[in-house]
């Protein structure tokens, strides 16, 4: 007991004072661990530790067939599940030499942009909450429900909607879909304009975001930031434009940038991207090509390698897939957007800022912990920890839901 007394006492006496954020902390919606060394209110050092939700997806992918892996990688992250699926299946299709029908490409585009709308609205709420602006949090999450309803009505699920199947898509964009989604898009567009106006004019909100967490163009470029984080620093980097995949070659999209590089710019870029997405969805729906939704995919994928990038809502999602000519992939490497943006936060932005700004700066890159961690450890109760085989796990699952 006295040990604890002494250690805490010693820690208190030290001038440098470490404030741990996580693994469980109200600012974090998922487990991660940050240690901020502070002097008074100023952060002088920062470090991260991940792995609390590591599920070993990369390892698991090596012992499943290509179709199973498609559904597995969609579960890496619930919010950008479509991006993960698209990136992976794109590798498989390219390796098999399968060319998608144009209508399938357009459907993938639309699903991707709805996902982006959903993700950005979710982020807007979370970031506002971290800054202590709960009214915006509540409003944006109510609007997010509309997007969720669209997803549920047309793709069958609120998250993990699995639009992709090998060689095509499983959902069609019907006239009913277009009629159903149009009023919602109009409403969302109006709301996004309102939020844009609010972020530009609200005095206290600007006090908390303008010139906070600044990342310069050079820093951002050399650290390899991607997605809205990079674009808010003025970097013209968007996979949809640079390396157009699936439908983005048929229907080009323009990118949104801002050159101020602070938190406010990140808000503005994301909201403008939402407006752009709404416009884009309307455009694709109006010009959707006729044709089949799927083509035939072989069960065995020829040996080879493919490196695919997809512009997920958070930035560049990178997949490196190796095939050895069997029914299962040889290696699936996943590099998520959050992971490379960590680098920018830890190495450059955190130091010198106030502790009060940290949650908002962290939220500013839209971190996704489950994206970074990919491993499972099943441990029921405290007594008998054991690694379960797939069959045991399946049996347990079946019994549980009987």
């Amino acid at each position, binding site marked *: 007991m006295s040990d604890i007394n002494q250690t805490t*006492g010693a820690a208190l006496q030290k001038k440098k004072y470490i*404030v741990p954020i996580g693994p469980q902390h109200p600012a974090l919606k998922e487990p991660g661990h940050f240690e901020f060394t502070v002097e008074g209110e100023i952060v002088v050092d920062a470090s991260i530790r991940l792995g609390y939700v590591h599920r070993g997806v990369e390892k698991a992918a090596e012992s499943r067939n290509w179709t199973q892996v498609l559904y597995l990688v969609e579960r890496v992250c619930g919010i950008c599940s479509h991006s993960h699926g698209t990136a992976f299946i794109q590798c498989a299709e390219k390796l098999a030499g399968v060319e998608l029908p144009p209508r399938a490409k357009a459907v993938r585009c639309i699903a991707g942009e709805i996902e982006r709308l959903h993700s950005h609205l979710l982020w807007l709420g979370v970031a506002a909450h971290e800054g*202590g602006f709960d*009214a915006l949090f509540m409003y944006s999450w109510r609007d997010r429900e509309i997007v969720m309803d669209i997803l549920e009505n047309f793709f069958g699920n609120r998250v993990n909607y699995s639009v992709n199947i090998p060689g095509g898509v499983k959902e069609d964009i019907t006239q009913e879909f277009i009629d159903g989604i149009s009023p919602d898009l109009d409403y969302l567009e109006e709301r996004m304009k309102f939020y844009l106006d609010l972020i530009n004019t609200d005095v206290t909100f600007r*006090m*908390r975001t303008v010139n906070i967490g600044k990342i310069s163009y050079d820093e951002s470029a050399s650290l390899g930031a991607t997605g809205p984080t990079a674009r808010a620093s003025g970097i013209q980097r968007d996979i949809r434009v640079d390396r157009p995949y699936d439908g983005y070659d048929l229907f080009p999209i323009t990118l949104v940038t801002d050159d101020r590089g602070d938190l406010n710019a990140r808000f503005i870029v994301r909201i403008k991207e939402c407006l752009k997405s709404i416009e884009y969805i309307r455009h694709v729906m109006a010009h959707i090509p006729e044709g089949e939704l799927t083509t035939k995919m072989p069960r065995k994928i020829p040996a080879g390698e493919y490196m695919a990038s997809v512009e997920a809502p958070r930035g560049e999602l990178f997949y490196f897939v190796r095939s050895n000519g069997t029914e299962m992939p040889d290696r699936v490497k996943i590099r998520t957007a959050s992971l490379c943006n960590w680098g920018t936060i830890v190495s450059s932005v955190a130091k010198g800022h106030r*502790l*009060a700004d940290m949650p908002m700066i962290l939220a500013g890159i839209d971190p996704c912990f489950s994206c970074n961690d990919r491993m499972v450890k099943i441990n029921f109760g405290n007594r008998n920890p054991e690694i379960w085989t797939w069959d045991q796990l399946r049996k347990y699952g079946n019994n549980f839901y009987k």
Partner: protein
Amino acid sequence: MTAILSVLQLLIFPAGIFLILISCIYEWLDRRLVAQFQNRVGPRWFQPLADILKLLSKEEIVPISVNRTLFILLPIFAFACVMTAALYVPMFGMESVIGYPGDLIITMYLLSAMTVSLGMAGANSMNRFAVVGATRTLTQLFAYEGPFMLALLIPALVAHSWEIDDVAIYASNHTWMILTYPIGFAIALIGLIGKLELSPFDAPEAESEIVSGVLSEYSGRGLALFHIAKNVELVVGLALISAFYLGGIGNLLFFTIKTLALLMLISLLQSTLTRLRIDQTVGLWWQIGALLSLGQLLIIILARIL
């Protein structure tokens, strides 16, 4: 007989149980209004009372490394401070229970003592979040306390009295001071938000940074007492401002209308503003708040001389 009466006044009405119940209603209204402004439903009317009853009945966990006596005594002290302060303030359309020249200073002292005990509770908790919260609580205290005090002294100066009841009676016989001294009113109201650590001055308990600040280690009875103390402080503060700036003691109906109007204003400010950083809070109070209240004071003094 008088002794029994005083005990009754302290424990049952107007302070004591009655005030606790009323303060729960005020907390509920505040939460409900904020929820409505934020497009939410909000809690049902008995939620704050249920929270407090539940907390009071729960086990209180005392961390190993804290000073046990202080940890247990501080919530009681904070609670006692606001309850005593309530006796000096005219509430529910009646004159205050105790009144003597200089009780305004006592009341302000008691209200500050409650904040200081919060800060001490945080520092005593030996928890990183609580210690950061405690420094923020005390820093904020130094920020708003000066202007807030000046804002409450302005009516006293105008009424030539240091007794709350006298000032209130003066206020009811003259034009409402919100019209004659609007700056003082604004500062008093915003100061009250700072005192209660509500948004936008909720940096001391910013949950996304330091969990719940000074109260991170508190549970059960201690937490409940701090909650009650804050709720009562809200009612006392509203009563004080309405007595000074909104035309005196009045009657029960007017008291309710006036305080509810003030509460609505506070809720509106809470839900439309973003949390300020602690350095921004301090800067704002000293650069704008202090100057404005000093200016208002100067005007009064000059007006009296000329």
